[in-house]
């Protein structure tokens, strides 16, 4: 049997180099993302069930608003084309914003304490979990992409654009899931997190460019859309998938910046869940 007690490997130095830290962070992110992929593979029910809501948004809201021409779209593109990336971002948001519930569930079942007792820095754990949420959200994006294509939305199928769109969804989901884990560290119970999640999800969705151009919003609340990372995710998706012009550099910088801040905030409160 090869479970003989051994001294810690020499690599476990007192102050590891930046390269060693980066490699460990990557291992954790890859581990948790791969575990999430395997969970999706073992049980696809959630994937199908979660497809219902975006399908209804596209089928009912999208089709109706296309018919009444209520929303003036840039360059006069069909409303369903305009709406589809917004619904992709929304369904990813809905998955990520409740990810903190999973952390509380893992706390209750001892999984979190066991993970925290491995040589995994808290920031690496939160980053790993947030990218795992991104993996789940990306699977949702694929479902909405297929649904939209069936409904006649004309996408740019350039593989590089699709990959970049998936990256935008992963990074935005990393922000929203870390925000959720931060709130979990504050409120500590599933019930409270559920309440807060429900309270902020719709405002986040409506105070963005997911359903309509920001220019249509009253000037007094337009700033909400500009500080809302969901807007940058939707803008990036529209540029990459349906060719609407936007500054991708600004979009990705906003998404990456907000994700780093949220991960740092969630990491600082993770210890509260382990007490």
């Amino acid at each position, binding site marked *: 049997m090869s479970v003989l007690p051994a001294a810690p490997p020499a690599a476990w130095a007192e102050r590891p180099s930046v390269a060693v830290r980066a490699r460990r962070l990557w291992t*954790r992110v890859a581990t948790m993302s791969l575990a999430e992929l*395997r969970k999706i593979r073992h049980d696809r029910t959630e994937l199908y069930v979660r497809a219902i809501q975006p399908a209804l948004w596209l089928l009912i809201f999208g089709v109706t608003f296309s018919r009444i021409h209520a929303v003036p779209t840039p360059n006069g593109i069909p409303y369903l084309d305009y709406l589809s990336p917004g619904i992709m971002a929304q369904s990813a948001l809905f998955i990520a914003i409740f990810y903190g519930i999973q952390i509380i569930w893992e706390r209750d*079942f*001892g999984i979190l304490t066991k993970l*925290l*007792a491995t040589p995994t820095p808290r920031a690496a754990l939160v980053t790993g979990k947030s990218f795992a949420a991104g993996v789940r959200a990306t699977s949702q994006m694929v479902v909405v992409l297929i649904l939209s294509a069936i409904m006649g939305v004309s996408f740019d199928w350039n593989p590089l654009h699709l990959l970049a769109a998936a990256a935008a969804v992963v990074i935005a989901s990393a922000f929203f899931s870390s925000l959720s884990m931060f709130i979990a560290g504050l409120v500590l119970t599933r019930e409270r997190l559920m309440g807060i999640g429900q309270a902020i999800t719709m405002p986040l969705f409506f105070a963005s460019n997911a359903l309509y151009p920001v220019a249509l919003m009253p000037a007094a609340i337009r700033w909400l859309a500009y500080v809302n990372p969901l807007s940058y995710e939707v803008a990036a998706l529209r540029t990459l998938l349906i060719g609407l012009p936007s500054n991708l550099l600004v979009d990705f910088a906003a998404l990456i910046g907000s994700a780093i801040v949220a991960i740092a905030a969630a990491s600082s409160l993770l*210890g509260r869940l382990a007490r």
Partner: protein
Amino acid sequence: MTDTPAVECRELAYAFGTLRAVDGISFDVRAGEVFGLLGPNGAGKTTTIRILTTLIDPAEGTAEIFGLDTTHHRMQVRQMLGYVPQQLSIDGQLTGYENVWMFTRLFDVPRRERRTRAEDALASMGLADAAGRLAATYSGGMIRRLELAQALVNRPRLLILDEPTIGLDPVARRSVWERVEQLRGETGMTVLLTTHYMEEADALCDRVALMHRGRIRAMGAPAALKDALGPGATLEDVFASVTDDHDIDEGSLRDVRVARRTAGRVG
């Protein structure tokens, strides 16, 4: 074997608000022994374990694992630990193998060794045949053995088991005891376990510390503690003699919830 104690606690203390959960305890665990922290719910056992696993810092005192301070050398301490928490902490949405494989990666086991380590750990716990099944389909005893397999992948020098048989039926409990005995026999690994089952401590431990209300009331080999009390004495009698029997808490809501949740997952 080394002369450095596996665990060395000095005047360790931790408080939740005004409640001193751990109230200035000192004890050593010698390398290679099975040491038990015994006591009823709320005695301070799990808080002590949380300090030793670096999850919380002590408010006072120090704790060292093989000479490394748990506050200042967190990552190095964690690298030496195998830890099985009180709750049944496997991920039911992953297979047995995937649960263990995940920990080979989290402990930075070299890529080429991951599969072998995971398979060896599963085989040593008698789970080779069930490795491909979703862990949600495992029985309570199998889940505990899977957790032991997870805890072994980094070849720990110290295995920490927090209430390893809580919520398990007698057969599953016996199978966990056998695996701990087997590990100890085959590897000489140091084991620190907490339990509130006196017969478990009697069966498994070389030495025990009896904890009550955050303090250690007695410490020594189970046989020596019983002999000191008189012929026919049990560990329960020893415990009653060092505490006021009627003074024992019945456990907080949190303790009861943990035990029921664990029992609920076992089914």
